[in-house]
């Protein structure tokens, strides 16, 4: 048994320490957003945020996560109350099948948390580990730019409210 902090809640997890975080999130905690794409660290579909950094959950064993804060796409917002990055992806209609999108959003979120005004080049460089087979790239880029603008206004509107 180990305690894993996910989206602000403690979860008692009964899994082998070598279990990749991805399976704990999906199988034990029943979250959907982090996706199995390759299990090899090659595609980014499984990306979540750990202590503010984008992490490939398919190659991160549970044992390394003691005492850390894990955030998944579910932890950012909901359909009814979407986070800026979620709103941005909806407004740009930045998905085709959408299977890659949760991972993309988490890395973009991590980027925007440390750099609220990234350049187009910085966004492209940041998203380099991520694959999208549907060719939604143009919209993904637009959505990240839009998220940056939305977060900017949200911050201005409610100073002091930090991103999750």
């Amino acid at each position, binding site marked *: 048994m180990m305690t894993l902090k996910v989206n602000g809640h403690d979860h008692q997890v009964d899994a082998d320490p070598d279990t990749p975080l991805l399976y704990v999130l999906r199988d034990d905690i029943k979250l959907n957003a982090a996706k199995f794409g390759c299990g090899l660290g090659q595609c980014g579909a499984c990306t979540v945020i750990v202590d503010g950094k984008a992490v490939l959950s398919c190659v991160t064993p549970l044992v390394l996560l003691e005492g850390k804060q894990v955030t998944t796409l579910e932890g950012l917002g909901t*359909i009814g109350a979407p986070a800026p990055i979620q709103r941005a992806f909806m407004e740009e209609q930045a*998905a085709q099948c959408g299977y890659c999108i949760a991972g993309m959003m988490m890395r973009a979120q991590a980027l925007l948390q440390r750099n609220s005004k990234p350049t187009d080049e910085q966004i492209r460089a940041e998203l380099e580990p991520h694959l999208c087979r549907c060719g*939604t790239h143009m919209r993904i880029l637009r959505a990240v730019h839009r998220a940056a603008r939305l977060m900017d206004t949200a911050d201005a509107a409610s100073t002091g409210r930090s991103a999750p």
Partner: protein
Amino acid sequence: MNAPVILDRRRVLAGGGALIFSFSLTSAFAQDQAPGAAPAPKPPGSLATTPYLDSWIRIDADGGITVFTGKAELGQGLKTALQQIAAEELDVAFETLKLVTADTRLTANEGYTAGSNSMKDSGAAIQNAAAQVRELLVAEAARRLGQPAEGLRTENGAVISANGKRLTYGDLVAADMLHVQAQPKSKLKDSATFKVMGQSIPRVDIPAKVTGGAAYVQDMRLPGMVHARIVRPPSYGAQLTECDTAAIEKLPGVIKIVRDGNFLAVVAEKEFQSIKAMNALSAAAKWKETASLPKQDDLLKVLTSLRSQDFTIFEHSNPAVTGQKTIEATYTRPYQSHGSIGPSCAVAHFTDGAMTVWTHTQGVFPDRQGIAEMLRMPPASVRLIHVEGSGCYGHNGADDAAADAALIALALPGRPVRVQWMREQEHGWEPYGPAMVTKLKASLDGNGKIADWNFEVFSNTHSMRPGGAGSMLAAQHMAQPFAVPEPKPLPLPDGGGDRNAIPFYNFPNARVVHHFIPEMPLRISAMRALGAYHNVFSIESFMDELAALAGADPVEFRLKHLDDQRGRDVIEKAAQGFGWKAGQTPPLDRGYGFAFARYKNHAAYCAIASEVEVNRETGRPRLVRAVAAVDSGQVINPDGLINQIEGAIVQSMSWTLYESVTFDATRITSIDWQTYPILRFNAVPDSIEVHIINRPGQPFLGSGETGQGPAAASIANAIANVTGKRLRDLPLTRKRIKDAIDA
């Protein structure tokens, strides 16, 4: 339009209710078919095969409306588009509709969701069914109010009379009222009055996808569900010689090992336990392999020396026109992967003698037939329900995963079984897009126009979809295996290897031969656009070679050979949007390219202009920008259409610049994203612009595949433009470009 029919309906409705009405319709059809007369016209789209209106639209007494389609959402925005069509013709609010997609128990059998046919098949069926349902409701309101139907209008789910009386659809509907066969013609709305169709309504599936909702079959969690993994053979035809499973059965969480001939799988309580057990099982399994694969680096020779059935599919001659200057060229395409980001997945549950499978297959009905045959169960005891998966772009591992899940579930009655493939399995076992060769030869007359045109295409079939059990890996690997069905060439006008092989341009002399190759050294099937990807790449590259020979501008040269006005319109639109000018000089190290096709020669029109940069030192190409123009008939959702075309250009760019399946004499060696590299963000264009030419009131032409061929050729032409060298072998890799520059 169809006034007599409406009179009929009114009379019947007034006379005794809907049930009798359906009989009267049947006899009316029978009377139409006097001996020797032409067959009665059929209603449009899939209504022709599934004619009852309530197969498509049902209205509850509380006014709730459900729309049914036999097609599936593949990430192409199908649900939203169909819901728009239904809302428009029914005159109800978009959000109030419920939509049920492909399910063998609930929906019409519309075959596969493929070929850009969904709007033509299901869109047309739903549009016409909705219009006829609305007419029936208006007729019923007219009867109840004792007013002529002409004075009534519909709005927001109700029929409203001139004096403001309002009867909701729920009030009006009665048992079996919609259980009537569709008429051949419907009173469709005038496209000028559309309120929902033609609008960029946000996709209904996106909110869940960007908030972590359960959106995919991969996200299903049924009570008591267990996880299975397959151990596939290491290569085609490998035989399992031994496998000591004793130690693996004792691994934590392991419930069962399923072995049936060369089919090997393990089931565990938790997902990662099943993966660990799969790895152990894989290490324990010993296989006998045979070297059966052809030479990967000489596909030209391989394909042109395999036995073929040859069909002359087009011949046109005008002896008055003869050529003066002749050129020839050969183009090749390697095997390419669908490469879905999410490996294939399915959930199956066998209980009380019935099998239910949740799958991201493109065809629940054909897949059910295959699975029922494999399990030796009556099809009626097998139900397939479509649930979205990762984008598939054709026939990937979806059907195989469904068969895997079903075979394992049969061995574990009562427990839902979830199977997901590993990355290496998806890359190694999916049926690839077939390798192809095209040989072209053409001559110019004295005026620089094409006088004769010869086109030969060498290809396997482009569909090995189920149908029968033998199309699915599990059934092929069982101890009593099902044979792979005989491949067949797909019939024209759609075609398979010969899709878009017939030129859409006007050439005085033209001949097209399809060399259909039955033998399939690699497992292949349908991949987005089928043969059209390579045929359009070849035709449109060769058009540029001929334009150069004629000293003509590529856009002008195309227009000179094209009468079709809608084709000319997209060419002109793309050229204009791009800023194309004859004799233009691109910036240093950049080239411009242009290409055009009408998909299948009878579906959507698409022209693409592109600007490509080539690094002369490394040969690295980059698509800088692309401008597309597309005419897909009446537009349902402009943003959805743009999304499809943007995606097609980006995906086709990836196929065209980077992708080929690799293999040695025995095994597939491109088994992950390292060994099968695809586009990454560093190669994403600066911009893609899509111009839509809307054709209000015209038939839906579909859009999913129209961009693949033109994008490839447009990029190839731009590379030729900047390097001065023509590359004819796909993919146009950095190395090939560099070698051509240095040659």
